[in-house]
């Protein structure tokens, strides 16, 4: 592996902007944020996956994957990062290198030719090139190829050096952020620039969530300079350095970008969330405060408060009919990172009981937030083996499972309602409006008569107890007192 990539990763593991990282000793810091993977019991994506997730939503560029088929072929066009215009980003482009390319060392040449073909066909404003395990292993220097291609074709060609084996998705997010810092952000100037310009970092516009938030900002006269990277255009990201405030929504995924933008261009940043009513209000408040501190008109704060009052009331009015139906319903929340704490507060606002929440991918900071919200740490679980989760749900320990696609079938096979709150979901849950959608979807799922029907035993099966179901030794989920 190239030395520069090693140096980059080491540098990423030293993140003054991250409290968890600062608290670590010298040695622990070198190990990075994620635990070492256990062969045979690992789940989750690789660094390449993470890099792709972070950058793919840039809609008007071609994302070209330099590697064998599987890296792109098995995963392209699989997320619902929505676009308001260009659809070039949905094209799955890969060099699909063959055995001959590997043996003959033709990888770099093939990549260069591929870039030429892409430019000839689409003339995109930029190409983002991703390395993968195999091309990193055979020593293809995508940085050099991109430099050469940029010169030759006059179109920015951005190398993203995050081969899968270097680590987790989270590391890949950060390496993607580094690529933006090294090659994109600050390379162009915006057409207009106002004291009300902000960037949102780590928002990918999944199922169009950005558009649930954007109207709120517009109402306040806050201009979204760049969303990194949901529904973004290349020039927006390239001119992101002119914003006055950075809001970081996906916890620490792009913290390196936020911190370095502060160092380079003096843009203050804060971490906020648009999931949940209270969190949305807090985020708007902080945005207003920071913008005013950066020179925006002081009336912004007042206008923000007025908007919050009006929107919170409108949201609660719309939620009121559901409160009675949902209060006391028990939720098992099984997801990682940012979504846990932001959704916990949202559901508690509805009087629902969180019986347990996973903190697999959460940082210590996230955990503290959950602890504060739920009072004590008895209900945080690291991970639940599928078998155990199945038994808990089958026994009726929770009324609904909120998780990502991986555990969907644990719930469904246990004949328990399930709702997708991860990246593959089809509904948008952000802002005040998103909270109403989330609650409506929860209610739709919980009140479906199908649950009662599918739980019924066949007439010829024993009425008492179910055959072959074994939950011995599986701890029960305890509701919060």
């Amino acid at each position, binding site marked *: 592996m190239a030395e520069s990539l090693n140096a980059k990763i080491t540098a990423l593991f030293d993140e003054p902007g991250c409290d968890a990282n600062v608290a670590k000793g010298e040695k622990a810091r070198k190990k990075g944020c994620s635990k070492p993977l256990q*062969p*045979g019991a690992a789940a989750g994506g*690789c660094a390449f996956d993470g890099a792709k997730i972070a950058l793919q939503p840039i809609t008007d560029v071609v994302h070209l994957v330099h590697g064998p*088929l599987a890296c792109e072929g*098995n995963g392209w066009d699989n997320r619902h990062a929505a676009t308001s215009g260009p659809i070039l980003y949905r094209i*799955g482009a890969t060099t699909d290198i*063959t055995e001959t390319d590997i043996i003959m060392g033709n990888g770099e040449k093939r990549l260069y030719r591929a870039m030429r073909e892409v430019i000839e066909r689409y003339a995109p404003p930029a190409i983002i090139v991703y390395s993968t395990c195999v091309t990193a292993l055979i020593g293809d220097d995508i940085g050099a190829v991109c430099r050469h291609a940029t010169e030759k074709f006059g179109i920015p060609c951005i190398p993203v050096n995050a081969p899968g*084996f270097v680590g987790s998705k989270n590391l890949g997010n950060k390496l993607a952020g580094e690529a933006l810092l090294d090659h994109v952000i600050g390379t162009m100037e915006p057409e207009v620039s106002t004291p009300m310009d902000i960037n949102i970092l780590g928002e990918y516009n999944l199922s169009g969530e950005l558009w649930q938030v954007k109207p709120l900002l517009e109402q306040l006269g806050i201009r979204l300079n760049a969303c990194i990277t949901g529904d973004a255009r290349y020039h927006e990201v390239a001119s992101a350095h002119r914003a006055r405030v950075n809001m970081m929504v996906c916890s620490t995924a792009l913290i390196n970008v936020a911190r370095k933008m502060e160092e380079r261009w003096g843009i203050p940043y804060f971490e906020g969330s648009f999931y949940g009513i209270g969190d949305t209000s807090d985020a708007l408040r902080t945005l207003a405060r920071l913008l005013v501190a950066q020179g925006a008109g002081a009336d912004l704060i007042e206008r923000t408060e007025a908007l919050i009052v009006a929107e919170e009331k409108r949201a609660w009015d719309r939620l009121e009919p559901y409160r009675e139906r949902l209060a006391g319903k028990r939720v098992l929340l099984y997801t990682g990172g940012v979504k846990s704490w932001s959704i916990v507060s949202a559901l508690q606002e509805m009087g629902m009981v969180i019986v347990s929440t996973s903190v697999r991918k959460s940082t210590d900071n996230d955990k503290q937030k959950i602890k504060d919200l739920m009072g004590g740490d008895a209900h945080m679980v690291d991970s639940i083996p599928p078998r155990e989760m199945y038994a808990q749900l089958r026994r009726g320990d929770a009324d609904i499972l909120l998780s990502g696609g991986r555990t969907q079938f644990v719930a469904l096979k246990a004949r328990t309602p399930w709702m997708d709150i991860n990246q593959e979901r089809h509904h948008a849950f952000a802002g005040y409006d998103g909270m109403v959608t989330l609650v409506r979807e929860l209610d739709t799922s919980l009140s479906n008569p199908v649950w009662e029907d599918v739980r019924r035993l066949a007439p010829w099966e024993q009425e008492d107890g*179910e055959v*072959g179901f074994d939950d011995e030794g599986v701890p029960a989920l305890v509701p919060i007192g």
Partner: protein
Amino acid sequence: MATIIQRRKAVSLNPLKSSAPLGAALAYLGIEKGIPLFHGAQGCTSFALVLAVRHFKEAIPLQTTAMDEVATVLGGAPNLEEALLTLVRRMKPGFIGVATTALVETRGEDSEGDLRLILERNPELADTKVVLASTPDYAGALEEGWASATSAIIRSLVEPWSPSIRSFQQINVLPGVHQTPADIEGLREIIESFGFYPVILPDTSYSLDGHIADSWVPTSLGGTSLSEIANMARAVHTIAIGEHMRAPADTLTALTGVPATVFSTLTGLEPSDRLVSLLARLSLRPVPGRLRRHRAQLVDAMLDGHFHFGGKKVAIAADPDLLVSLSQFFSGMGASIVTAVASTGSNCNLKNIPVENVVVGDLMDLEDGAAQAGAELLVTHSHGRQAAERLGVPLMRVGFPIFDRLGVSHEETVGYRGTRSLIFRVANQFLGESHAHRPEDFGSAIPASAIITEEGRYASGTFATH
């Protein structure tokens, strides 16, 4: 006879292929209490897993040796060993199928040798059958992976013929990767109706069909049992479907002496007739009434359906054997294949496709070809949706992956019954697209003299229809 054109493009735009390890994983999922294990970085598994889950709408037990930077530099054998031990400890599978990925193959690791040593020194692994197939992502696609895995299973687990083995009324079936659980179920019924016991390898009919079980099963939910695999030498005949299953069939024949018949397709009246008469000959029984009835229904469906196929321009992109099968089906019903794109080019039947050129390429080749030829139907997997949207042409979803439709495991295409339902599916698709006639549809009815032509550039006939 079609010319096979290997595109010399450096970039693949909108890949048609799914990777070979994924094909191997699907085969391993057709083994009872099985777990597929990818030997590579965790991302290889994660992408394949997500794709398989979206296709089958089922939990898929797919694991990884999770090679990190250190393993990439020093070698993956310790990861393979740890993964096997962990899987056996945590999930107690009966079978683990290892598929190598491009990462270990590029390193040039002797995974087969590593596995032998690992099995020798770990008595804990004695109760689990472990099989390894070499499936680098950079060679072949889904079919190659599925076939390599099946061959590996046969080589490691089938007991070779010996004088003590007695033949039973057993038929071995080696289905191709394009056979759905419903196809396999249908084949089983046909074979059973002649009094045979079918041993199907791999058998996804009860592991990937989607059903609710009594408890949580961390391994595959059904599939060929290990004892059935061991006893494949007992059969009187082996039926393999698709050219990609010829190598596994040959391996099985060499090992057991059981003769094999490879069907290039089982979709259509004639191929179904050949299957049924083979079974009738082997069993010395008359064709059961139910099959005769199914045949009569198929013939009727062909008559009702041919109105809607005739003259239709169809563009197909698929893995080679599925492409061969569907092309034969569509052209047999009177449609013309205007564009044919295959994911890989080694299948010898590709040249028999009734089309001028078979392009070995991607979905952009399909899109370009379909646009140029004015295709009226696109036939490929779900990723064809982008092309369908851009061209405004309906998409019929076939093969893998199909992630935006339900019930794909229950779509049947083999035998009389499967062909019948396929005809209806396609015909209904065309019926749904049919529109009320309007005056402008009849441009060619205008007498030639009334047309103002640019001199010498258009032949009057072709101009008038456009």
